[in-house]
């Protein structure tokens, strides 16, 4: 029965990860506006073109009259006349008044099927004086239609299609935390009992955790290149993650350096307890006290309600369970190797 249960949870972890891959790469992105052309406007009539990515926000041959585009300046709305709507583009005529509350204009595209698309600071008016928008230029806020997009991932500026990396990068760190936590408990038990069985557990946990830490760093670096434009930025969260992985690599080097020394178990356990405390400080405490590019800054280095929506949760939670279970499976394999090696060496 035990063997049967073993294969059920191991098989389930692989099935969950297969689901995550299929769902994660086949789910379309919700539409989002990415640019407005021209972005610099003067006090005359312009033809403004907005481009979008993700799912189409309009059908082919859609009627422009079913859509509405308004520009926001400060807290007032500027009217436009939509002339053409394509699946990923909208064109409108806009007359710029001589006075505006703000020179920066945000765009709101109201669609019948895809909800309201927003582009902050879509364009700037170079020579408008500060003042209210004249009445004849103003628009009323149209009624918003609920989006009918089906199962799709949320559009986030800059992140765009790379939001799928959330299903790899974050669960890999969660798996690392989980397995390093197991190693920490094993090291505490080792210090208390001086039993080699706990030392074998701690070594297996750290070795597995380092692999997941390296995977987390790699996926994070790839994501940073796409969203922030650099493979690595000097950020408290990123530097903390790197230092943590280096600390745990130090644990493995320490063990290798001590070789067959009788004290290896206790020394490694002391080091592991120290490394786990540093992990908590560097990844969970320090980022809360500093500004960070990483999502969830201002006190919370993790998620906030704007980072996840229900469609992402439907794939993200299976990813967390799947990666966690795969990590645990790897840990058990390493632990069993350690036990066999110890048993053979101590004969």
């Amino acid at each position: 029965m035990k063997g049967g249960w073993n294969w059920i949870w191991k098989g389930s972890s692989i099935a969950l990860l297969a689901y995550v891959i299929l769902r994660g790469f086949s789910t379309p992105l919700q539409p989002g506006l990415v640019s407005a052309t021209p972005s610099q406007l003067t006090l005359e009539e312009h033809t403004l073109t907005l481009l979008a990515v993700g799912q189409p926000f309009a059908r082919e041959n859609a009627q422009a009259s079913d859509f509405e585009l308004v520009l926001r300046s400060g807290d007032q709305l500027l009217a436009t006349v939509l002339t053409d709507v394509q699946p990923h583009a909208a064109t409108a005529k806009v007359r710029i008044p001589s006075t505006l509350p703000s020179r920066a204009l945000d765009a709101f595209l109201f669609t019948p099927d895809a909800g309201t698309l927003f582009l902050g600071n879509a364009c700037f008016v170079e020579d408008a004086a500060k003042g209210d928008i004249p009445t004849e230029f103003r628009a009323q806020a149209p009624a918003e239609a609920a989006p009918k997009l089906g199962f799709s991932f949320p559009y986030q500026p800059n992140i765009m299609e790379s939001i799928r990396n959330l299903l790899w990068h974050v669960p890999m760190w969660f798996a690392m935390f989980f397995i390093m936590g197991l190693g920490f408990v094993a090291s505490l038990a080792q210090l208390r009992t001086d039993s080699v069985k706990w030392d074998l557990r701690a070594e297996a946990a750290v070795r597995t955790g380092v692999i997941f830490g390296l995977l987390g760093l790699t996926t994070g670096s790839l994501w940073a290149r796409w969203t922030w434009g650099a493979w690595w930025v000097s950020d408290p969260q990123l530097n903390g993650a790197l230092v943590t992985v280096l600390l745990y690599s130090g644990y493995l080097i320490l063990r290798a350096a001590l070789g067959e020394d009788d004290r290896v178990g206790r020394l490694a356990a002391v080091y592991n307890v120290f490394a786990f405390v540093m992990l908590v400080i560097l990844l969970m405490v320090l980022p809360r006290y500093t500004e960070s590019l990483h999502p969830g800054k201002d006190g919370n280095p993790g998620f906030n309600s704007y980072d996840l929506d229900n469609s992402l949760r439907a794939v993200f939670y299976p990813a967390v369970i799947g990666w966690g279970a795969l990590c645990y499976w790897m840990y058990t394999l390493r632990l069993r190797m350690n036990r066999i090696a110890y048993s053979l060496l101590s004969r």
Partner: protein
Amino acid sequence: MHALLLLNSLEGFFFGSGKAHVVTGVALTILAGLAFAMWRMDRRLSRLEEENANPPS
């Protein structure tokens, strides 16, 4: 290809050219390979544990 899909490299590359299917296929193949390797290692370890528990006399 729609001009929009050329707007930036990832948007155009990933869904615009159908490479999403290739990425899915590669990821599933790697996962299958990893699962097979771990399953084989699991079985070998079971055999070694058994041999270790009952060494041949």
